[in-house]
């Protein structure tokens, strides 16, 4: 009896020590930026499969937002859909169905934008993720990472993205990159530098067959 009591007490104490002290959020927050600039608009169909994969992977309680990158992306108007999945799996499943329909509708009717404001989109993404209170924050940039700002837009702003993982998806090579690959590498390096200077981590996934790496570590 004494042994049983000792074991029960130990388990209770261990559970309290391990569990009660840990108050970090386990929810994941994902914000995806879709580049709708003229050259990249044709790639949007690929984004659909990524969105479907994410909808299948995200769990009840997670947050998911999708926004487009256009001339001025630092705006709530550019958010196509955002949702905090309900804790109940059945409700979350229905939310995912509606979300999917919304995104499909956008991809079918998306119009190309003359300029590409990636920085504004990233700033908006960081704001959204911080507000969501997610424990793991992911920003997915579906773009060629070629920023083309309209005259007058100020985007020379350092990022503040501690604990945010930025994943660049399907970073296509431009015609100029083919002529001089150093431009492509330089572009990637610049973005990596900006993200890491801001305290985030950087990852590039061009092979869309390996989507499981998106939210990994």
């Amino acid at each position, binding site marked *: 009896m004494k042994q049983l009591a000792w074991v029960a007490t130990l388990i209770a104490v261990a559970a309290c020590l391990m569990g009660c002290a840990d108050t970090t959020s386990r929810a994941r927050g994902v914000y995806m930026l879709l580049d709708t600039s003229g050259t990249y608009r044709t790639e949007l169909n690929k984004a659909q499969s990524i969105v479907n994969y994410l909808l299948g992977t995200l769990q009840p309680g997670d947050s998911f937002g999708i926004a487009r990158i256009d001339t001025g992306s630092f705006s709530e108007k550019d958010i196509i859909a955002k949702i905090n999945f309900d804790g109940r*799996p059945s409700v979350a499943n229905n939310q995912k169905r509606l979300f999917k329909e919304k995104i499909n509708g956008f991809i079918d009717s998306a119009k190309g934008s003359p300029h590409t404001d990636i920085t504004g989109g990233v700033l908006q993404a960081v704001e959204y993720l911080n507000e969501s209170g997610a424990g793991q924050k992911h920003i997915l940039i579906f773009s060629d990472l070629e920023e083309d700002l309209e005259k007058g837009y100020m985007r020379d702003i350092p990022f503040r993205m501690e604990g945010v993982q930025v994943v660049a998806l399907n970073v296509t090579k431009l015609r100029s990159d083919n002529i001089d690959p150093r431009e492509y590498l330089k572009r990637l390096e610049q973005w990596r530098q900006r993200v890491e200077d801001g305290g985030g981590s950087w990852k590039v996934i061009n092979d869309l067959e390996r989507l499981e790496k998106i939210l990994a570590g």
Partner: protein
Amino acid sequence: MAFPELFMVIPGPPMLSILLWLGLLMLLFYFAREPAHQAIRSLSRTFHSSLRLAARSLLLAERRLAGRNKEVLLASSRESMERVIEREFHRVDAVVKRDLAGYPSLQRALADQIARLEEDYRQSSELSPPIPTWVEAVEAVAKIPSNGDPTVSKVLEKIQVIVQNQQKAVMAEYRKNISHRHGLLKRMIPYWRRMTDTLEDVGKTITGLQERSAVIDRRMAEYEEIIANSDRAEQMYASSAMTQFFIAGFVLLIAIGGAVINFNLIALPMSEMVGGGSYIGQFKTADVAALVIILVEVAMGLYLMESLRITRLFPVIGSMDDRMRVRMIWITFGILLILASVESALAFMRDTIAADLHALRQSLVDAPATEPVNSWIPTVGQMALGFILPFALTFVAIPLESFVQSSRVVMGRAATGILRSGAFFLRVLATFASYTGTFLIHFYDLLIVPPLWIAGLIQGRQRNGQILSPKADHSPRSKIKVQEESA
């Protein structure tokens, strides 16, 4: 000046300086030989003694623990043996109450049956037909000579007819009597059978009692051995405890497997109740809730088994009065039934959620929807599992009790084994320390072989000189000789 140059006391090749230093060191070592030997010897002796002391302490602790283990083992064996003997006596008591409590009435019934049999037998005993007393008169009449007298002939004929009629009547009466006796004997058969059955039952009961008494005798002999603290009893129950430990451990592993399946059955639907995104520490609240439900089921099972007096983990429950105990049985059984029903419902919900999730994933990959074959079979199977597993987990209490009781013995034995090994290891270390001291002394001498050799030579020469030219003999014997000569 470099450090090595400091040691170059002799100009020229360094070998000379090295040899000089070596010689000096040897001399130093030679003069410090005795203190160095003593230091090494005392150091090794310190280690040796300390290690031996530690080994002895461990052995003492091991003996004390072994004694305690024996006490615990025999106490628990005595308790379990008392339970066994008590149960055997209960069985005997039940047999006596059931079969022999009605012995007086049985005896009466037997006596009645025997009386009836005797009566029937008496009645059935054959009676000799009545002796015809008038036969002689008839014979006398028959001897009367007729001499053609028609009157006599008529009388004789009349007598013949009467005798014949009389004979027929007697024979008929005789047959009737015989038939009546046969009837009586026939009536005896069921009485005989009944009596035989009754006697067989009594015989079986008596045989059963004899067998029980033989078992009780055996158990009592074992009990006496336990009371006598015999080594044989200790060995017997220690090996029994080991066997119990492994068997109970194996059954507990099976039970854990069942609990894991149970957990997987209810963890997903629990997220529908408590939310899938909330966490307690590092664990999902839904998982914790499912685990809690399973643990509550196990606890209820323990209480139920305890209330039924199948296990004896909680003396408080065992010592409750019967009414309270029965109440507790019903309460725990009711809670278990409710939990089993909840689990069954959760299992159904799990199936629904899993089907919905499957449909969602199919729509996400744009695959055509497939109709599951016989979809009700897994649903019903899961519901049945959800209902049965809580009751199956109830029986965990039995192996758990055996495991807890036998683990004390097994752990005690393991601890004594560890202590004994530790003592052996310390003894080996002590011996090693002792021999290392001897080795170091010899090695020290090996380093100063040249001076020792020279000293040996000198001492040898001195000894030889003393033997060849004894200057004076101061021994007591020579003194006595001188005194004798002077006298």
